[in-house]
């Protein structure tokens, strides 16, 4: 017992030493430094606009432009075209989506075999979902099998998809995630990104990159200092550094 009481102050000292091997910056100091940095309102507006444009919120883009005067880096009409495609996929109207993409720019599907395959795969999934089994098999044979012949990974994906037909209880089969709405979203996002790239626009909003940068920078700094970090990005509050 007495040994315990001897150890405590020793431990406290060690901890203090460990804590002090990293530089410590207190909240007040930190906030003072932060206040020196100027961020312009226009820049923040641009970031928001860029987010809205990339994600495709056409109405929000128009409204935000009206309210702030920030110019979108893309025509609203183009955004709406792109959104029509994305929504078609999300509703399962893949054929319609394909026609719309081809009206926008026929090169996209002609030069993106992976995207084209995923769209065709989604068509097959929708046919299976609606229990149009014969049509599904015909479609798989006529449209998808040749793609599988051209590419090994496509073949594997095709086999996974066709295996949906084998299971009586699809909700429990190993490939059930293919029937999930999230699969539609995945395909929709892929199309969205491809259209943006074809228009020489970045496929990720800049806000995304900024957040990634923040996380990375904090991780790097964690190794060298104790400082008020942001733990919850939604709240963006500074947590007091542990001492």
């Amino acid at each position: 017992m007495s040994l315990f009481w001897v150890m405590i102050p020793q431990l406290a000292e060690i901890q203090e030493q460990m804590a002090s091997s990293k530089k410590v910056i207190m909240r007040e100091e930190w906030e003072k430094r932060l206040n020196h940095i100027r961020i312009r309102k226009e820049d923040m507006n641009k970031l928001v606009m860029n987010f809205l444009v990339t994600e495709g919120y056409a109405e929000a883009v128009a409204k935000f432009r009206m309210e702030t005067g920030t110019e979108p880096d893309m025509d609203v009409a183009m955004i709406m075209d792109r959104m029509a495609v994305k929504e078609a996929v999300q509703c399962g109207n893949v054929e319609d989506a394909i026609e719309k993409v081809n009206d926008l720019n026929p090169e996209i599907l002609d030069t993106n075999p992976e995207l084209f395959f995923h769209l065709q795969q989604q068509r097959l999934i929708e046919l299976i979902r609606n229990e149009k089994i014969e049509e599904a098999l015909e479609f798989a044979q006529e449209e998808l099998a040749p793609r599988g012949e051209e590419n090994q990974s496509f073949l594997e994906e095709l086999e996974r998809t066709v295996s949906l037909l084998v299971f009586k209880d699809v909700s429990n089969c190993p490939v059930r995630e293919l029937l999930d709405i999230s699969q539609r979203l995945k395909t929709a996002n892929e199309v969205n990104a491809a259209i943006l790239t074809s228009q020489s626009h970045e496929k990720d909003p800049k806000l995304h990159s900024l957040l990634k940068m923040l996380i990375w920078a904090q991780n790097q700094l964690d190794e060298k200092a104790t400082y008020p970090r942001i733990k919850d990005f939604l709240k963006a509050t500074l947590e007091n550094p542990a001492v």
Partner: protein
Amino acid sequence: MPSATVNKPRPSELLSRLTSAEPEVKVRALREVKNQIIGNRTKKLSFLKLGAVPAVAGILADSIDDVTENNNCNNTNNFLVQSAAALGSFACGFDAGVQAVLDAGAFPNLLRLLANPNEKVVDAVARALRMIYQSKLAPKYDFLQQKNMEFLISLLNSEKETVSGLGASIISRSCETNLEQKALFDAGILRKLNSLLEGGSLSLRDASLESLATVFRNNPEVISKFAGPEIGRPLSSIIDLAKDRYPRTRLLACMCLIVIRNASPHFLQDIGIKTKLIHILLELLDDPGQVGDEAPFAFSSLIAQKEDLQKLALEANAIDKFHHHIKKGSLHPRRYEGILLALADMCSKLESCRSKFLSLQVLNLVADALTDYNAGVRAAACICLKSVTRSIKNLSAGYFMNETIVIPLVQLFLDPSTSVQVAALGATSNIVVDFTTRKSIFVQCGGMKQLVQLAKSMESSVRSNALWALKNFVFQADNRLKEGVFSELTASLLSSLIRDPEPSVQEQALALVRNLVDGCINLIEFVFAEDGLILGAIGRQLQCASKAEIGIQGMYALCNVASGNEFHREAVMQLLFTQMGDKNQSFVVKFLQSNDSQLRTATVWTIVNLTCPSSPGAPCRLEKLRNAGIVSQIKNMVNDPCVDVKLRVRTVLGQSMAFGDN
């Protein structure tokens, strides 16, 4: 409601609707064809076979007429857009489609439509034309004609990216000669491309990089004019793009810089840029797509034939990285081929690279590639082997003469692809120079017989490479082996190969004889077989030798024959003199006067053997040589610039003096 695929019209049905009188039916069918073929190579092929392309091209042509007659504008534009898009899709990455579009006469119509007022029409047309220009089958663009150059400039100056991109594609495809490159430079095109580099969008930047590389290729003058006065600045924009965030841009920028480096000794030579290029290209290997497939080819163009770069790449662990990628397996054939060729270039000159290669056990993976289903990969594996087997250290240790390599390699002698055969023969030629006595493995797996078969091939490159391999195979081999080769070959085949129409084949055949008769005196009998067929062939071939190399090998063959007995020496003498015909000069004098020092050396050596003092017939032969003016020719060569020649000349003169000559 989810889409259904019910009641899809058959392709032939769709095609007949294309010629319908009702515009509604026609345009719907057109759109349907377009949507079916986009992204779908199989459909493109089947529609092509049904004659869809002329039908669509016809709609395009009719719609142009409608435009000129100012008929229903919206409808016409729709027809134009859809038909142009369909034609563009047929041409996209599909040579048969490109050919069909050109054959259908759509090309001039598409060009005319670039001036159409409707934006969507122009976009569709520009895209279609760009697809055509991405193919080798595209019509050649004549830059040297003034109005063509003006048209090109107008394309590049367009606000529309699809159109300026087309301009860049035309340059990338059609610019070939130095004259065209200069014409483009003079017209200010390079400045324009450079501004597209700095201000344009992603795809435009990439297109400009490709075009710039095309204009710079093998043209140091254009490069220095472009980069010269503002030293560093135009080049620096390209160098910056080599660090761009998009992999394709990085690759294209590197390729452009490599073109500049290779053409011009003044630019991009410092070690910093060399190291940077190597690192960027090695890192691009990690890209899973087409960029990663093409990166090793760019790497090869950077290091090929350049030892300093190979050394730097070795230090940057290039071989380890390539090994790592091949080990992963299931590579795209293009990527596999590229990596194997890059390894071949790395190991082509430096023993340090070969040691690294062998220590990492890459050899086994390359041996696997010999049986790959893709011909390009098989050929590349052979080329890689050829480089690695230049390692004399390992060759002497018999490292390569084992079943894992020899058996698949010999199988490739029967490969359907000629380039694979030739590549396999190249690798074999090195491997059979085995300084141990393990050549029997090669005979056991039928390799030697195969080589003889290939020496009868219709392809001259296969014949000459097979002979090359045989020549190396019998190099300093034991008598039994040589006799085996000779009996398989037969005197008549060998003599006909000596008289082959192709000089390269003649050369290798003569070299083979040289190696066969070298050494034991019994082997010299080969050339006398079947009434001296081979000896006669050598004589006739030397009389009309079309290049020095043939003379060299032939003379060394004779030299070796003359190292035998008196009978052999007399036979050689007869050969040297009976071929004179109405020429006063024997070819011997011609060879002695040749500019090629090796030829002079070989000829003098032969004379040395013919006039060897220990042989009884030597004085008589010397007299004959003197009478033919050969001895005085040799006397003139006392101070020959080549040391080998000089020494042998002195030997001859010394020998002749032993017979009382002054």
